């Protein structure tokens, strides 16, 4: 049972974790770079240690520096937050080896989920389906590929195993195109990557990104805490999230939720976790599991009324989860706008001094931030400056609250994406609900949302 927690992070999440620790009567230790010496997470901690210079790799990512600070401060547990070292199995292992508590799952769970193929296999064993495909390199004979493609259904995607980031991929619309496409992709892969291995996967044309939050303890109990929709993304970065995922049958969500909780019980997973899915035509396909607290956890807190970070710490202390699945009720709707210091149009970071800072208020409005007037936004770290979270009784009511809150918020001295958010919440398709993961980029490419 630990009494002192070292928070190996900065920004709004460091403050969020500090608050959870305080409500549990735990001491908090902050670590910081020279750049963050005046940061609020440093000022509010019970003790703070400078661990390195501004670049994250020499401070917030420096495992040894963090372990040294833990030793000197007498902390017994480390909370990694999100980003930085939160999903680094090697770091979690070092924390465990030092006899400390890593507030998160066991290092072995992080390692399994970090390996795409191992994660898919673990999910399949738990009865959770993945995007259908060849589950490994295709054999050389085209006949085998033909049979597989027919079974999973066209259109399919041929991908070079050595490719990535959109390179070495080809869409196949129907059976007559498969053999030539296969030959061409293999030849291209041989030339581009020196490796002609390819695999086949079902092409999802208009999927949504839906995720299920889970919470598990050390005693074999696990619950799921509703769904979130994070389809509004740009370059795989989430921009605006909501809970629950609109327009999906509650029965299907409950069935998926149960399977996720069962997978946690089966694998001995503990702590907070998120199962991410692509959802198309009412079907869920597992993509990956995040073995940490997520940026968008707040929308789940709003609809469930449960303090996720507090529970994450309590289960790490070995406490039994006294929440039964039937006690978890999702009420109303919630949105989270990620406000970033970035230039509209180019999306380039906009570091600098915050000259004006007016926050919105009113019923159901929550702002998680580490920024205030006069703060300096560093070029060394993530550009997230605030999470504007809004809760209401229905999706429409909540969206009206979000529109108002975004209009009330004012940031001066640096550029932000506030105008983008203001445009998104008035976009007819978004207002209707259920847009796919390509919607935001498609709108931006059309010159919309300006």
């Amino acid at each position, binding site marked *: 049972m630990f009494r002192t927690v070292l928070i190996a992070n900065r920004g709004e999440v460091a403050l969020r974790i500090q608050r959870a620790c305080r409500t549990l009567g735990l001491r908090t230790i902050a670590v910081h770079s020279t750049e963050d010496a005046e940061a609020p997470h440093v000022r509010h901690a019970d003790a703070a240690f400078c661990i390195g210079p501004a670049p994250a790799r020499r401070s917030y990512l420096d495992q040894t520096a963090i372990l040294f600070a833990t030793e*000197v401060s007498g902390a017994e547990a480390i909370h990694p937050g999100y980003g930085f070292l939160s999903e680094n199995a090697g770091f979690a292992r070092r924390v465990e080896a030092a006899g400390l508590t890593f507030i998160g799952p066991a290092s072995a769970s992080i390692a399994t989920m970090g390996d795409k193929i191992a994660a898919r296999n673990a999910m399949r064993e738990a009865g959770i389906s993945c995007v259908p495909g060849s589950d490994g390199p295709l054999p050389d004979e085209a006949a085998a590929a033909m049979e597989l493609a027919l079974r999973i259904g066209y259109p399919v995607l041929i991908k070079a195993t050595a490719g990535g980031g959109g390179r070495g991929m080809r869409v196949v619309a129907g059976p007559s195109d498969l053999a030539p496409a296969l030959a061409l992709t293999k030849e291209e892969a041989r030339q581009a990557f020196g490796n002609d291995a390819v695999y086949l996967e079902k092409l999802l044309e208009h999927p949504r990104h839906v995720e299920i939050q889970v919470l598990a303890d050390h005693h074999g109990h696990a619950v799921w805490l509703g769904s979130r929709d994070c389809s509004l993304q740009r370059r795989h970065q989430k921009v605006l999230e909501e809970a629950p995922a609109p327009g999906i049958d509650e029965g299907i969500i409950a069935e998926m939720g149960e399977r996720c909780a069962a997978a946690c019980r089966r694998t001995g997973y503990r702590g907070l976790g998120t199962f991410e899915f692509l959802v198309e035509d009412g079907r869920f396909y597992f993509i990956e599991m995040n073995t940490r607290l997520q940026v968008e956890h707040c929308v789940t807190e709003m609809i469930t009324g449960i303090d996720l970070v507090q529970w994450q710490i309590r289960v790490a202390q070995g406490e039994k989860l006294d929440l039964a699945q039937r006690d978890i009720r999702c009420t109303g709707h919630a949105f989270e706008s990620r406000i970033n210091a970035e230039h509209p149009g180019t999306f380039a970071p906009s570091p600098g001094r915050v000259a004006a800072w007016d926050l919105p208020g009113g019923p159901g409005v929550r702002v998680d931030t580490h920024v205030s007037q006069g703060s300096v936004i560093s070029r060394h770290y993530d550009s997230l400056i605030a999470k504007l979270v809004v809760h209401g009784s229905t999706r429409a009511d909540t969206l009206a609250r979000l529109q108002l809150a975004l209009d009330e918020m004012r940031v001066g001295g640096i550029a932000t994406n506030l105008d983008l958010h203001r445009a998104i919440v008035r976009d007819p398709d978004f207002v209707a609900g259920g847009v796919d993961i390509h919607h935001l980029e498609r709108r931006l490419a059309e010159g919309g949302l300006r």
Partner: protein
Amino acid sequence: MPIAEAEQIAAWLAGTDIEFLELRSADGCLTLRRQGNDVAISREGAPAPQEAAREITVTAPSVGVFLHRHPLRDAPLVRPGDTVPAGQILGLLCIGPLLLPVAAPRAGTVARMWAAHEEVVGFGSPLVELLATEGTGDHGH
């Protein structure tokens, strides 16, 4: 870097959405910063050679508990007024079972101890003030 090359990089930068570029080398630091459609170039020479600065503040390389003396000894490793060669151990940083030596980067005289014995320090905390011996060009590290 010759000025022509810096201007070429500035021209490339103007066509991108990069706001700020910093190039560091042994010769100094070149900074390119976008201001609207223009790119401002500023350069600083290499830091003045250490010989010029007589007062040297030795800072902590890590979090730790600063010790003036080894835990098994009674006498301090150095005292103000002591003359020390480069590389001489001035104090120790205690991190759990680890003892990290803090060495003099140059030969000189110990002017004062900034951090008290058993004081908890962080990265960059001033530990010892050295007055470098003039004319010696040797560098510890």
